[in-house]
């Protein structure tokens, strides 16, 4: 039993480290933006959601979701 738990923890640890390495080379869009770049950029500016200012358009987004209206993110 204890060996099993050790194996689970080891697998989780190695999978976690693998994902961190993967994120270093992972492109999040077709322009080749790296995930690490995205995370750093996001953390470096004032996040409107965090300070409670954004998503006033939540109801608009909600309506859009169910009306089938699409918006090109790029």
């Amino acid at each position, binding site marked *: 039993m204890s060996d099993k738990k050790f194996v689970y923890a080891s697998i989780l640890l190695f999978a976690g480290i693998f994902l*961190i390495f993967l994120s270093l080379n992972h492109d999040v869009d077709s322009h080749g933006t790296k995930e690490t770049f995205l*995370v750093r950029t996001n953390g470096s500016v*004032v996040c409107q959601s965090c300070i409670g200012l954004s998503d006033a358009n939540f109801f608009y987004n909600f309506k859009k979701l169910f009306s089938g209206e699409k918006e090109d993110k790029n």
Partner: protein
Amino acid sequence: MKRKFIQLTFFIFQNPFIHNFVAGRPYAGPLKTVCVPGLHCYSCPAMAFSCPLGTIQYVIKYASAIPYLAIGTLMSVAAVFGSASCAYFCPFGLIQESFYGISPWKKKIRIRKGVRHLKWGFLLIFVLLMPLLDLAQGFCAYICPSGMLTAGIPILSVNSEYFSSMDITFYWKLFFLIAVIFYVMYERRAFCRYICPLGLMLGLANRFSFYKIKIEKNRCKGCDVCVSFCPMGLEPRKEINTLDCIKCGDCVDSCPTKFNALSRGFNAKRN
């Protein structure tokens, strides 16, 4: 006392850029690429690193991608410490315990059995579903009291240009922050008990993580002294290393020396 020292050390370690409060802008250097396992807003001007919860929501919503970095970090930390990082590294955990410490109306309350599962709702709806449906960064936008306390209030107090954007979302978050602060002064670590999705994700590995609390059942006399010391309101005799346990070790310290039934560490025998 030792745990408080570690919490304070990590708090200072994560917040070296105090001078940024004057300008009301967050630090923008390379350290922001690193996620740290604790609830602390990356928009806090003093914060050096990134919040894994915020990162998960942002990458899902704005890049429609799997947030490998934040998930990988959480998996690695969970494998080694489980949710002990809530007890030792989380700045908002320290903030809650500080409010509880100075509170004139604190009570020792056991965790509420049904309400403890609310965390799943916050994780699934606000952290995963709302960004997935491109609605909002749900947890950051509507729930996170850490964001309001360490980023919203300090940034808005020095940047008047944001005032015109204040709407019901802002007032809701402010109300929620005040409610959380008052409630954690009454019930210890109430936010961790019922709301925090980060603690939930880390706690999923509690049963098998390397760092463990160990109980020797033949030594435990069931005196339940540890129950009154548990910050999560658990019954350590039955509930150590469970999903809600933050492995703080307060039960270990409180166990009467004549019994010495509890221990902690990486080499604690796995039971």
